[in-house]
């Protein structure tokens, strides 16, 4: 007579116990088999299920006990010694247990997850990625934008619009910010991650002119967009002589008109100060804002191509010389004074050193032209004044990049040392972390028995496993402590008046933080790096060949 089909409950009970037996720890598996064997004596289905549940509880206890015992052993050790081959030496193992190592690593991770540590980690990341935005930064900006749109916060919208790498999204947010608060019209002057040659949309240019009619910066941006395609076309396949570039631009009436308007403007404001105020506002709202976002926003501000100023300045000075030569000294004087006037205006802005230097140089050329003109027409007094002014301009050139305020927040020498220490701690922390990971990985997956000649490596591996985790913990504290002065500097910048002095200082401090990664970049510079790699490979290949040849020659001798 065929045995009746077991009930569903019985089959479930049996299957679950069989599954548990597959993973049961070896040392108590026979008890699992003993429990499972009794299942066939139980007739009632739910009693069988109850029995199986008890079995699963036993399995859980056995696994937990096995795991705890495993944790108490050092890395690389096996639970059963029967895995050793007969006659083999017992394995060389670290002294510290896995439990100790796990506790130390958990403590390290806790330290690294403290709020200040997280800012420190994001600072390191920002410096090593050159203050470019990663996906996590983009997501943070998207969250900021979503919140700002919901709360109708024009200021945050303007900040995000200026920092987004997606030009369509940035321009959309810019429109939204301006519609909420027209005082942010200035953000239309930004590039919004479009190519330099992308012209300013006409409606934006009109709005900028309407909101800030006397600002020469706006027409300079418009002229830049006209000139950029010409630069690209001329420089595509060769380096043309300067006269060719000058001639190409001089023959473009639109560019000439824009530059003329720029040089006639009574004001020059590149909006860096406004942008910096916006950054300070957001940074104060969220002190944990990624330094990558701060740096990227700071340095993505649109700066004019000063070539336009130099070229137009030269053209104007040449026009003045032609006017003088054709007997129109007053016209020549007017042209040169206009150039000098605009250059003087531009040199008074404190935001960027290279704009100031360009303006100072332009002013020097115009003043030189005036000095020659006054000398030519016999106006000695004006010529002397021009000469005295030239001396002041030379002095201004020597000091063009000095900080604008003597009340510095940061002592740059001391900060450079602190930045170097901070980056060194970060680097050592990463190296130590990788060492910990590799040493434990190698210990856990090593073959069961190693030849004697590998014993030295095994000892090194065990010493590393013993001391690297503690070093990792110490380095994490060192990393946190080394960041404290830098965090303090950041806090000073956030709380200080968002003046242009602080804008310059924050730029310098962020650059100072990049000195370590820049050094690495130089070392890993492709030509130098590949030269080192090639040399190393060639040396290894030569050693290998030498050993092969030398080893082949000595083999027949030992056979005798």
């Amino acid at each position: 007579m065929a045995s009746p089909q077991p009930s569903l409950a019985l089959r479930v009970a049996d299957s679950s116990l069989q599954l548990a037996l597959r993973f049961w720890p070896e040392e108590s598996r026979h008890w699992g088999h003993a429990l499972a064997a009794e299942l066939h004596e139980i007739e009632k289905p739910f009693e069988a299920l109850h029995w199986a549940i008890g079995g699963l509880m036993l399995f859980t206890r056995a696994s937990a006990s096995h795991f705890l015992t495993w944790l108490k052993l050092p890395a690389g050790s096996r639970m059963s010694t029967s895995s050793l081959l007969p006659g083999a030496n017992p394995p060389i193992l670290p002294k510290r247990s896995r439990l100790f190592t796990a506790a130390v690593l958990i403590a390290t991770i806790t330290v690294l997850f403290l709020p200040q540590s997280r800012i420190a980690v994001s600072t390191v990341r920002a410096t090593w990625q050159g203050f470019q935005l990663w996906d996590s930064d983009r997501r943070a900006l998207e969250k900021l934008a979503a919140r700002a749109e919901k709360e109708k916060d024009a200021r945050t919208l303007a900040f995000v619009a200026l920092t987004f790498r997606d030009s369509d999204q940035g321009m959309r947010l810019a429109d939204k910010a301006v519609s909420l608060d027209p005082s942010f019209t200035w953000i239309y002057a930004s590039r919004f991650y479009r190519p330099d040659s992308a012209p300013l949309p006409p409606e934006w240019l009109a709005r900028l002119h309407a909101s800030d009619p006397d600002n020469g910066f706006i027409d300079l941006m418009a002229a830049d967009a006209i000139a950029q395609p010409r630069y690209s076309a001329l420089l595509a396949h060769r380096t043309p002589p300067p006269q060719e570039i000058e001639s190409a631009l001089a023959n473009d009436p639109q560019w000439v008109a824009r530059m003329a308007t720029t040089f006639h403007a009574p004001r020059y404001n590149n909006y860096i100060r406004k942008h910096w105020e916006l950054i300070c506002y957001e940074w104060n709202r969220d002190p944990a804002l990624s330094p990558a976002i701060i740096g990227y926003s700071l340095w993505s501000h649109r700066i004019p191509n000063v070539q336009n100023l130099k070229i137009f300045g030269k053209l104007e000075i040449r026009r003045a010389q032609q006017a003088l030569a054709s007997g129109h000294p007053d016209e020549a004087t007017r042209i040169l004074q206009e150039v000098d006037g605009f250059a003087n205006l531009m040199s008074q802005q404190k935001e960027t050193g290279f704009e100031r230097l360009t303006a100072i140089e332009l002013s020097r050329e115009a003043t030189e032209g005036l000095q020659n003109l006054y000398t030519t027409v016999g106006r000695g007094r004006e010529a002397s004044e021009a000469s005295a002014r030239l001396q002041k301009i030379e002095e201004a050139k020597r000091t063009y990049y000095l900080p604008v305020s003597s009340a510095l927040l940061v002592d740059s020498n001391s900060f450079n040392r602190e930045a170097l220490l901070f980056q060194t701690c970060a680097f050592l922390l990463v190296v130590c972390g990788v060492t910990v990971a590799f040493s434990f990985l190698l210990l856990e997956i090593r073959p069961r028995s190693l030849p004697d000649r590998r014993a030295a490596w095994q000892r090194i591996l065990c010493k590393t496993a013993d001391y690297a985790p503690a070093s990792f913990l110490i380095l994490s504290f060192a990393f946190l402590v080394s960041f404290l002065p830098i965090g303090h500097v950041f806090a000073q910048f956030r709380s200080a008046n968002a003046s242009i002095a602080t804008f310059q200082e924050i730029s310098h401090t962020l650059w100072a933080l990049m000195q370590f990664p820049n050094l690495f970049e130089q070392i890993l510079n492709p030509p130098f790096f590949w030269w080192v790699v090639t040399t190393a490979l060639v040396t290894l290949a030569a050693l290998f060949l030498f050993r092969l040849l030398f080893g082949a020659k000595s083999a027949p001798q030992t056979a005798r």
Partner: protein
Amino acid sequence: MGIRLRISHQTLDILEALLARPSQWHYGYAISRQTSIPSGTLYPILMRLNKSGWLETRWEDAPTTGRPPRHLYRLTGNGREWAREELRSAQQREFWKPAASQA
């Protein structure tokens, strides 16, 4: 055999069941039915008794065809003496009562 065991009510019930026929081998399910102790509680106690040396175990010699061999349990000689002493002590302390007196 010097491991100090935690003697619970369930452990005493199991000792009483094993002492009922001390020289006989007992199946796990039979002990469970006799003492009404579920498998999740029974087997850890059996494991501890075995580890202490009070309990001996063996697999049955001729299992039924189509079924795996069953595990059998019996108190060792010293285990019987120890179990009787523990039961007596627990009864005196009024910590535990034999199953017969509970019925």
